[in-house]
């Protein structure tokens, strides 16, 4: 092996610290060569090694009676009965999407899909959580359009429906947008495949696209902060080919249906390096690979480039010895490149050869598991108290509730996302029972009587103001979305987007958020089975709001016992479950109307939350509910407006009477008190529903009647100050909400 002098500059370029380099010297007992240095750099990057987060992630609850596969594999798996598992995960592609929105988002979708079908599951649903700056900004519009068409371009072509998601617009994400993609697949419980290189002597087989010089050091780039030079990192962004991925998907599932497969892993971040060393490390084996046999796009690629390329749509599998021809035949059927590139060994090492000569030799475990672990210092930021201080007395109460409601409905975060989801095929595979635009997407599970409900959520502003409470609320709200569909939560995946972990205030946010996730998951008895951490979401020294995105899966035992959020029929009674408090801190109302992002996020009592959700699920299962909608951004008034205007088959009004009970009017209408759900029920069922709620200890009140062409919300009858009630015709309400995003995008 050729030796070289490793300089400080080379280490910096590889984002390795001096201490980390010392550790490499210890592991190898010698200086690494160029290829080995690159492999360590990629595997020990924040993105691959979770070096700043791992000690904290351990605290998360990951077990439960339904858990078939927890964190550490390509995706998590949860038992849904009938011999089936829901396999799911969420992942970020933030950095690449900022540099090149179309390809960044597209390859994010490609990556998460591979994680799912690698497990033996056929992907049946995609969702996404996006964060952008303000739409007034031309670059934000460029990013939004690029990201949406990238997601559409990849997901649509794959024939996997994008059934839901959420988007928040806030200036804090202007130079660091978030693109988090969730995917769910269905697998037979006994046919779940893992990424393990078992069986000494078994062939290691490469299949999929050829390896090219794209995406080299993508993992390292994704573990870095950004500045004005970010655009120059474009070559580190991979280019997606959904058609090849579709072939890869079908070939994989066909291979898995047979009896030739031992282990399989996709080549995602850190490419061939990560798949080879992780598969060996999980099993305590080694692998020996001949790089000359790796299918390549161009001649002259060095071992360094081959090992660090992040070319998309590639897989590494270990097959049973003697079954090589079977594998090759299936791959050829699907017109995929395929090559036996090595064998499983008992050395515990990843040994790479080029035409028979050893070019790298590293213990697999050292790369995959023995990377650095940091317990980074954490302390609250100096501005935290100032952020939380909100003087209610200095805040004038709402003067024109009509105007405030319209302003909220027209704010892009709350406005209809139809412009976005109409570009996604959300119906292919004919499982979609509830399409985008309700609290949760609902998909039937073919061959069973069941359905799954899916939701993604996180309020980054709450998490900024109080990382612990914000993270708790993210879990609670996601579960509440599922409850509004009649689904019981059965598993969580998370995508933890934070700033630079080397800043103590970012670590403080991270550590508290983990505590919040833990407490909420334990209280709601739902395990976290997979996830992803995205750190260094920081541009020009400005970190994003802490955004621990949550994806949650819920089970509906009887597919036809579900609910949607919009009102159904004139004469139905509107019932509010839960209690309204003076919760204005961190609200969308405060931001949109008063231009403040301040205060303490709403109080969340997990016991109350659990009771409200259980009650809602029960009512839906018993067929007593016409519609159910969670109160979140914009509070009760926005929730009621959405109930009136979000139905696919037209609009229907409502007349609501609210009593102030000493609350501020703005808090009553627009405050974001947690654990509240708006139900509509048939008139003759109203008493029964109220009774069920009362017995469950859930506050419940009859607040109005569905019907008419207007949304009327009277506060304290007519005794209240002028301007404190809402009375708007639905056309106006709908127009504001429906046209906000298309109108903002028409600026270009």
């Amino acid at each position: 092996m050729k030796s070289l002098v490793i300089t400080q500059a080379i280490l910096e370029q590889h984002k390795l610290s001096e201490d980390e380099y010392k550790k490499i010297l210890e592991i190898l007992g010698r200086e690494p060569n160029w290829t080995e240095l690159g492999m360590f750099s990629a595997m020990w990057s924040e993105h691959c090694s979770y070096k700043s987060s791992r000690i904290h992630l351990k605290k998360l609850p990951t077990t439960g009676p339904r858990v078939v596969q927890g964190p550490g594999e390509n995706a998590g798996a949860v038992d849904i009965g009938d011999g089936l598992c829901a396999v799911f995960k969420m992942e970020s592609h933030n950095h690449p999407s900022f540099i090149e929105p179309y390809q960044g988002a597209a390859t994010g979708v490609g990556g998460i899909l591979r994680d799912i079908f690698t497990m033996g599951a056929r992907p049946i649903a995609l969702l996404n959580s996006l964060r952008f700056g303000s739409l007034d900004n031309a670059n934000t519009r460029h990013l939004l359009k690029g990201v949406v068409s990238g997601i559409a371009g990849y997901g649509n072509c794959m024939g996997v429906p994008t059934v839901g998601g959420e988007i928040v617009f806030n200036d804090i994400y202007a130079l660091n947008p978030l693109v988090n993609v969730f995917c769910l697949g269905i697998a037979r419980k006994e046919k779940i495949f893992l990424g393990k290189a078992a069986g000494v002597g078994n062939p290691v087989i490469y299949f999929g696209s050829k390896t090219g010089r794209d995406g080299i050091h993508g993992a390292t780039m994704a573990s870095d902060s950004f500045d004005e030079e970010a655009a120059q990192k474009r070559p580190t962004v991979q280019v997606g080919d959904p058609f090849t991925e579709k072939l890869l998907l079908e070939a994989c599932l066909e291979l898995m249906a047979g009896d030739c497969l031992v282990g399989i892993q996709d080549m995602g971040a850190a490419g061939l390096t990560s798949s080879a060393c992780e598969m060996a490390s999980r099993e305590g084996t080694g692998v020996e690979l001949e790089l000359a046999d790796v299918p390549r796009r161009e001649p002259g690629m060095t071992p360094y480039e081959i090992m660090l390329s992040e070319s998309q749509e590639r897989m590494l599998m270990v097959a049973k010895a003697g079954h090589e021809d079977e594998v090759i035949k299936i791959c050829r059927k699907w017109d995929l490149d395929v090559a036996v590139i090595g064998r499983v060994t008992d050395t515990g090492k990843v040994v790479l050869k080029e035409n028979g000569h050893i070019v790298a030799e590293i213990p697999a475990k050292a790369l995959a598991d023995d990377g650095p672990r940091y317990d980074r210092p954490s302390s609250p930021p100096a501005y935290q108290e100032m952020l939380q201080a909100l003087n209610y007395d200095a805040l004038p109460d709402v003067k024109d509730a009509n105007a405030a409601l319209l302003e909220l409905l027209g704010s892009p975060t709350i406005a209809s996302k139809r412009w976005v989801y109409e570009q996604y095929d959300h119906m292919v595979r004919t499982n979609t029972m509830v399409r985008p635009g309700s609290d949760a997407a609902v998909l039937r599970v073919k061959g069973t009587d069941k359905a799954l409900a899916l939701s993604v959520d996180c309020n980054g502003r709450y998490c900024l103001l109080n990382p612990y409470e914000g993270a708790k609320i993210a879990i609670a709200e996601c579960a509440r979305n599922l409850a509004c569909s009649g689904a019981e939560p059965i598993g969580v995946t998370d995508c933890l987007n934070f700033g630079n972990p080397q800043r103590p205030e970012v670590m403080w946010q991270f550590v508290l958020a983990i505590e919040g996730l833990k407490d909420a998951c334990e209280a709601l008895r739902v395990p976290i089975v997979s996830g992803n951490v995205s750190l260094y979401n920081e541009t020009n020294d400005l970190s994003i709001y802490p955004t621990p995105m949550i994806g949650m899966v819920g089970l509906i035992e009887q597919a036809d016992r579900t609910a949607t959020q919009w009102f159904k029929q004139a004469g139905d009674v509107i019932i509010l479950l839960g209690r309204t408090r003076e919760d204005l801190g961190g609200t969308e109302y405060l931001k949109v109307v008063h231009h403040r992002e301040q205060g303490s996020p709403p109080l969340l009592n997990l016991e109350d939350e659990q009771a409200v959700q259980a009650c809602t699920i029960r009512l839906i299962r018993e067929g007593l509910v016409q519609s159910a909608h969670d109160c979140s951004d914009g509070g009760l008034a926005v929730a009621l407006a959405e109930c009136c205007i979000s139905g696919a088959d037209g609009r229907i009004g409502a007349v609501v009477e609210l009593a102030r009970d000493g609350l501020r009017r703005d808090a009553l209408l627009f405050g974001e008190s947690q654990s509240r759900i708006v139900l509509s029920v048939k008139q003759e069922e109203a008493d029964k529903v109220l009774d069920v709620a009362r017995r469950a200890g859930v506050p419940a009140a009859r607040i109005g009647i569905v019907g008419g062409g207007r949304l009327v919300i009277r506060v304290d009858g007519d005794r209240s100050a002028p301007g404190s009630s809402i009375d708007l015709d639905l056309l106006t309400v709908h127009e504001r909400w429906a046209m906000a995003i298309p109108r903002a995008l028409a600026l270009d």
Partner: protein
Amino acid sequence: MNIGVVVFPGSNCDHDCAYVFQDVLGQSVRMIWHKDTLPGGLDAVVLPGGFSYGDYLRTGAIARFSPVMGAVKAFADNGGLVIGICNGFQILLEAGLLPGVMVRNTSLNFICRDVYVKVENAATRFTNRCESGQVLKIPIAHADGNYYTDPVTLAGIKANAQVIFRYCTPDGKVTPEANPNGSLDNIAGMMNADGNVLGMMPHPERSAETLLGNEDGRLIFLSMLSAFGKTEQQSRLVRV
């Protein structure tokens, strides 16, 4: 009824079409790999939706060269029933089994949503269970559904009652506003002169079950069954 569903590389509504015929309507379905030929004994062939060959070059442009297409053409020439849905319609156009071409939607975007189509001709083997003028709600999902042909061909297919579905308002008015993609004369689906080959952009397989909230699309499959004197069989998955 014996149905063959062709699987091109990149087809992604193949399973959905098979599910409707087999699991919902209780018919017999065979999946046909594009490199193979058609087996004997088929009553109808489905060219399903998707992105055959990734839509590279032009939608349907490469799939028309797939080995199976020779057999599909012969099957159609012998009077066999062929239905092409979405990408399947695009392939039928490229293969010359139907006249005209598809271009990009006027919005330039992919569009996925319910649309309304008016049944212009109910006396066909694909629409005999519909009323003439009936409005069906069926979803579309495509980026290239903007049908175009020359004026002479258009006049010919209209005179011949080959236009089967046109985009319309919920109450059946064929207006420019009801046209989602700029398609010439609001054409959403059309037939060949012999009446045995249908191409349509909307996806009836996505609206053929109550559980999915809409059964309008089922009428098209039931019509095909009727054309063979069949009725739907008790499906394997009965839901009340």
